[in-house]
């Protein structure tokens, strides 16, 4: 069973820095939404769509009333799992027959987002669109423009922006805890074919769109753009160039996207973000690192740590930290509001987030749509990170450096 990842801590603390465990204020962890449940349809019920259905089912302020998928077996499977829903084979039919739906969640393959998003925006629906937003710059621009012209909420699925652990870490970052930035690094390593079984060769081709370079942004776009977005979110700026390489190292099954990639994104001031993703090996999984003169922040979805340099000033909140021994190093486990949690007897219940990252993204969307507030991840935020992902994928495919035009990002 999962526990705070000791292996990652061991690895990261080997240099002798103290590990500070980041946890947000307890009050922030319970999204509270007022008003009647938001009537939602989920379009696309593959793996991600089913995960979304599972999380929405636990949010009292959300009420999923319909699902849509062009694959009948997937649609029937979703209808079996969540009884009482109405199912549709196309988003056009859904929009025609379900006028009372207030919001849609789009979880279809990336290259199919544009038309669905434009039609749903035109129909006046609040929208949560999975990311990357699209597989071409033109489609991304079209979605961003339509979202800007809509009076409804458009939220996108770069989840770090609504994740409380990332928000807390970002507050330390913004307060200057790291001082001079040295480097950024991220990875997503998982041994998997990244393949979905299809009953016929045609279905197999349709379901495995992300293995087809013509329709997929590959690991750089589909996974990397999420992690590069973390850096965009923290720094408030984007790289000006990206170079990359990619190979099919293991899965020689006819796919045309690399199963192992390396990226280097360069910022205007010379700061660099290195990124690796592989489908061949799982070691250390997924994380983002933000390194600086006085500390390094490590983010791992539901957990975050800060590794302080020995000469970093001690801050007041560190007195609440628990000390833990990790191999040869003494790490400090930091839990914000530790005294309050201890008084409630909740310190021993674990230090990770009490909800999944996807839950926070969806709860933020439901809250935004219900209250008319700006979402944590806007169309512009998502469009910019999508474009960086698209260009990063171009860099991997070409094996060369690709410039990222700041004016293009600014226009989104």
């Amino acid at each position, binding site marked *: *069973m*999962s*526990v705070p990842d000791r292996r990652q801590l061991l690895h990261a603390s080997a240099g002798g820095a103290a590990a500070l465990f980041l946890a947000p204020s307890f009050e922030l962890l319970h999204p509270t939404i007022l008003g009647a449940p938001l009537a939602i349809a989920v379009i696309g019920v593959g*793996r991600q769509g089913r*995960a979304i259905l*599972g*999380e929405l*089912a*636990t*949010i*009292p302020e959300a009420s999923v009333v319909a699902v849509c998928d062009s694959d009948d*077996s997937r649609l029937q*499977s979703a209808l079996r*799992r*969540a*009884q009482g829903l109405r199912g549709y084979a196309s988003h056009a039919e859904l929009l025609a027959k379900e006028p009372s739906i207030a919001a849609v969640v789009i979880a279809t393959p990336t290259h199919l987002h544009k038309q669905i998003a434009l039609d749903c925006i035109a129909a006046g629906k609040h929208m949560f669109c999975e990311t990357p937003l699209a597989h071409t710059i033109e489609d991304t621009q079209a979605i961003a423009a339509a979202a800007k012209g809509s009076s409804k909420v458009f939220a996108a699925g770069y989840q770090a922006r609504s994740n409380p652990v990332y928000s807390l870490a970002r507050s330390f970052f913004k307060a200057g805890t790291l001082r001079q930035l040295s480097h950024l690094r991220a990875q997503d390593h998982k041994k*998997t*074919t990244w*393949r*979905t*079984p*299809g*009953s016929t060769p045609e279905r*197999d081709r349709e379901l495995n769109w992300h293995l087809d370079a013509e329709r997929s942004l590959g690991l750089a776009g589909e996974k990397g753009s999420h992690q590069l977005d973390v850096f965009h979110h923290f720094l408030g700026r984007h790289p000006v160039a990206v170079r990359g390489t990619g190979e099919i190292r293991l899965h020689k*099954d*006819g796919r045309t996207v690399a199963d192992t990639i390396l990226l280097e994104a360069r910022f205007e001031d010379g700061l660099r973000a290195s990124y690796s993703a592989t489908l061949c090996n799982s070691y250390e999984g997924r994380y983002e690192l933000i390194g600086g003169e006085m500390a390094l922040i490590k983010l791992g979805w*539901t957990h975050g740590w800060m590794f302080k340099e020995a000469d970093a000033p001690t801050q007041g909140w560190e007195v609440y930290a628990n000390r833990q021994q990790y191999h040869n190093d003494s790490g400090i486990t930091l839990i914000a509001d530790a005294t309050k949690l201890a008084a409630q007897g*909740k310190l*021993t*219940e*674990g*230090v*990770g*987030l*009490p*909800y*999944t990252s996807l*839950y926070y993204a969806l709860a933020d969307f439901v809250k935004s749509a219900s209250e008319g507030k700006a979402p944590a991840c806007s169309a512009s935020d998502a469009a910019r990170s999508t474009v960086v992902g698209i260009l990063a994928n171009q860099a991997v495919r070409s094996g060369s450096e690709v410039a990222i035009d700041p004016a293009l990002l600014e226009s989104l």
Partner: protein
Amino acid sequence: MLRLATRAMGTRFELVLGCEDEPRARAAGEAALGRIEQCDARYSVFTNSSLIARANRDACERPVRLDPELYGLLERCLELCAASDGAFDVAIGPLMRALGFRGQRIDAPRGASLGGFELDRATRSVRFTRPDTQLDLGSIAKGHALDLAAATLREDGIESALLHGGTSSVIALGAPPDAEHWRVRIGPDGAWEAHLRDSALSVSAPHGRTADFAGHKVGHILDPRSGRPVPLGLCAAVLAPTAESADAWSTAALVLRARGGSLELRRPHDQAWLIEEDGREPLFLGPHASFAPHARVEPTHR
């Protein structure tokens, strides 16, 4: 045959499946193992963001809304609790913690842990009726996950596969290509074997995990009614149509055996039970053909 594995629920899940089309079979296997990993993330008492952790944190103060899958599972847990006369009870969390099986030890709760929660179908929510209630799906989650994984394989057109979780719970889809059924040996010496075809087997034994409590070594299976650990010499194997049912009843069978009284009164009619106890002849209940002496004992040395 293709062999895949993942680590989840503190153990190793493994599956073997036929593979005429290896890329497709591998993808189907990964989807099935992904379902198991998902169950781990949702039902673990060790993961703060799991649905069970959310319920344990908040359900004594307010109803906690569940997804249909967990709601259905908890409904079946209540039915199992009633059918087993409380020998199976997922509200056993405080007792497990008191004995030191779930991290930091706590004081033993007063009285029985029986029940301790209620479900509201209209709001699909759970609410605890006692302040010390803590749910622990340890005696059913592996079987439940195996059933979901098997269903995923079937949806993806796989007709022959064997999945196990930590070698204590097994589910079989169809039969191997060259046999009538999957043969699974039971116990450390493998003297008995179960014949599985679209059915499941679960084996429970208190000595599988132990803790020191008040100077005594105790096993991880407790009678929820009394809080007493089941004697270490017992072992139960249950063959059932689903892994969830086999998993739950293999625990309940041990508790019922330790209590004494009639096991036949409680055994579901679609199950076969094999109860082994130190110094006694094995006890069979239900269709005997389900378990057979293993015909040939393999040499243990190489």
